[in-house]
């Protein structure tokens, strides 16, 4: 075979597949179908949802579609601008923007928009029909949170029923909690030893519910310390918490008939930095030789350092937090621990007021209801009753 023939055959071997490839890529992808644009439900009114049927060449046919581009205009004939891209196989897009007019990505509420979807296959693309008009509107009720609303309603009903029962004078039994029962003993010990009590509200924000629970417990404890004439030290990590704690303790001393014994300088701001706060509180424990330490509120990595120092100093310690990760540390290093919800129940236990005990009973009934639902959920999952799971789904 001559060299010329060999060269011709070699050329054919290379050129034929190339020709076939360019024929493939030159074919336009099928456009997406049935494009719908509508106001995104349950939002603040700055988003439009777009749905479409995938191109026939996406995952099937020529399988050439690599992505979809979402285009928007203010009129069907207007200039369409790109709003985003999604990968092949995706048939939804939420065109959302900012609610602030001074932001570059501002999305106006109430303006009509038209959309089309561009299927792209390399350099080639084909557009869908124009969909619209659609305008964004804010909703006044989030339908995805109905389950939460129903449960809140049920819980409120429980609370009201038990409060009513308590008001009628019905004796409500609440199980004793070791940590709360020990509060009197702990304050008494400090009084006998003539040493102060340390109350730490944790490193939560002033508006955390754990901090709010801590203020209510502080109020009860401060009233007792006022009666026993035992000083209470409250080092705070937040100036707002300091102000609240000062008012709470002042009021408690007033209620106990000992306003003269109240010392504002015992409730003070230390620092808002985590480990600097720990260092300061540890120093207080060791210098003031506090007989009793309360750690009630929100705690993080500092929980064990505080509790261990108190343990080494020989203080009786009562702790309580809703931070699940810190509970084991407190259990290991303090004498009594209020686990999770017990922190929220402590004020009711200490006050023994019927109305407050009523809310505790309501919590127990709500827990009973949740236990029944958990068992029902486990059975439903085992039997593949998907409707049961969907019944409780919450869309945030």
């Amino acid at each position, binding site marked *: 075979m001559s060299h010329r023939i060999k060269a011709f055959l070699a050329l054919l071997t290379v050129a034929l597949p190339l020709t076939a490839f360019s024929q493939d890529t030159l074919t336009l992808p099928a456009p997406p179908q049935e494009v719908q644009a509508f106001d995104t439900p349950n939002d603040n009114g700055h988003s439009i949802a777009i749905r479409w049927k995938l191109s026939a060449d996406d995952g099937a046919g020529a399988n050439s579609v690599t992505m979809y581009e979402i285009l928007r205009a203010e009129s069907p004939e207007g200039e369409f601008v790109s709003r985003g891209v999604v990968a092949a196989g995706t048939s939804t897009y939420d065109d959302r923007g900012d609610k602030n007019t001074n932001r570059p990505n501002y999305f106006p509420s109430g303006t009509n928009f038209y959309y089309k979807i561009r299927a792209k296959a390399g350099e080639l693309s084909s557009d869908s029909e124009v969909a619209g008009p659609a305008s964004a509107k804010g909703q*006044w009720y989030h339908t995805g949170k109905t389950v939460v609303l129903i449960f809140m309603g049920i819980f409120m009903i429980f609370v009201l029923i038990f409060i009513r029962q308590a008001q009628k004078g019905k004796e409500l039994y609440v199980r004793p909690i070791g940590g709360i029962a020990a509060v009197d003993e702990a304050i008494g010990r400090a009084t006998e030893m003539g040493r102060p009590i340390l109350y730490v509200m944790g490193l939560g924000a002033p508006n955390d519910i754990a901090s709010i629970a801590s203020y209510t417990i502080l109020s009860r404890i401060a009233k007792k310390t006022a009666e026993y004439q035992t000083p209470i030290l409250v080092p705070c990590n937040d100036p707002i918490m300091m102000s609240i704690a000062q008012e709470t303790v002042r009021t408690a001393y007033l209620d106990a008939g000992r306003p003269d014994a109240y010392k504002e300088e015992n409730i003070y701001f230390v620092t808002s930095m985590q480990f600097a706060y720990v260092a300061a509180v540890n120093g207080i424990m060791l210098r003031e030789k506090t007989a009793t330490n309360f750690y009630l509120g929100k705690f993080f990595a500092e929980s064990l350092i505080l509790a261990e120092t108190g343990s080494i100093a020989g203080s009786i310690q009562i702790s309580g937090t809703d931070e699940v990760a810190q509970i084991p540390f407190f259990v290991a290093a303090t004498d009594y621990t209020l686990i999770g919800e017990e922190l929220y129940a402590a004020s009711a236990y200490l*006050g023994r007021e019927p109305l*407050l005990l009523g809310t505790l009973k309501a919590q127990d009934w709500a827990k009973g209801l949740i236990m029944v639902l958990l068992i029902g959920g486990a059975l439903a999952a085992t039997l593949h009753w998907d409707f049961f799971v969907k019944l409780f789904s919450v869309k945030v």
Partner: protein
Amino acid sequence: MRQQLPLTIIFVIGVFMALQYFVPHQSSEFIYEYALDWVIIIGVFAMALGLWSLFLVHFAKIQKKSAGWGYSTIAILGLVYMLIAGALWGIEEGSPFMKIFWYIYTPIQATMFALLAFYIASAAYRAFRVRNILSTILLSAALLLMLRLIPIGPLSGPIQDIDRWILGVPNLAAKRAIIIGVGLGIVATAIKVVLGIERSYLGKD
């Protein structure tokens, strides 16, 4: 009146915040964010109160020569230095303010955090002492979980399986139980405060 006014404010704001969760409309968002901005504004003003409190407490300690008054002197000097350094030379990298922050404050903070390792060891020693059946179970579970991190040949496989079960079944069940309880406790506390059932922090009428 001393109680009625704060209780009314708490009720109105509390009910609004609860309803706001169910209203996605931008008007609701606007009021919510406006309220949150107020928290920041109050926080800034409260910081002045905090600084004043800090100064008074330490100044009193120095005056009375109380235990550890030397530390109080350092605290006040540090406070004054950082205020002046920040005001005069700013807080850019390399400024006197940032030098103190990086070369004194940060190492001290890291040292405090590092202490945690030693405290974990001493707390673990107390927690894992074999005293009764429960602490024995705790010790066994802890040992298995620690062994998971060590390559021990053919035993690694079964230990991994046991540990996965411990973490995924009893541990997770207990965690979820606590989380559900905490969730209910949060709602109950919020209801008590908003409805004025819990008013111990306001004192008697």
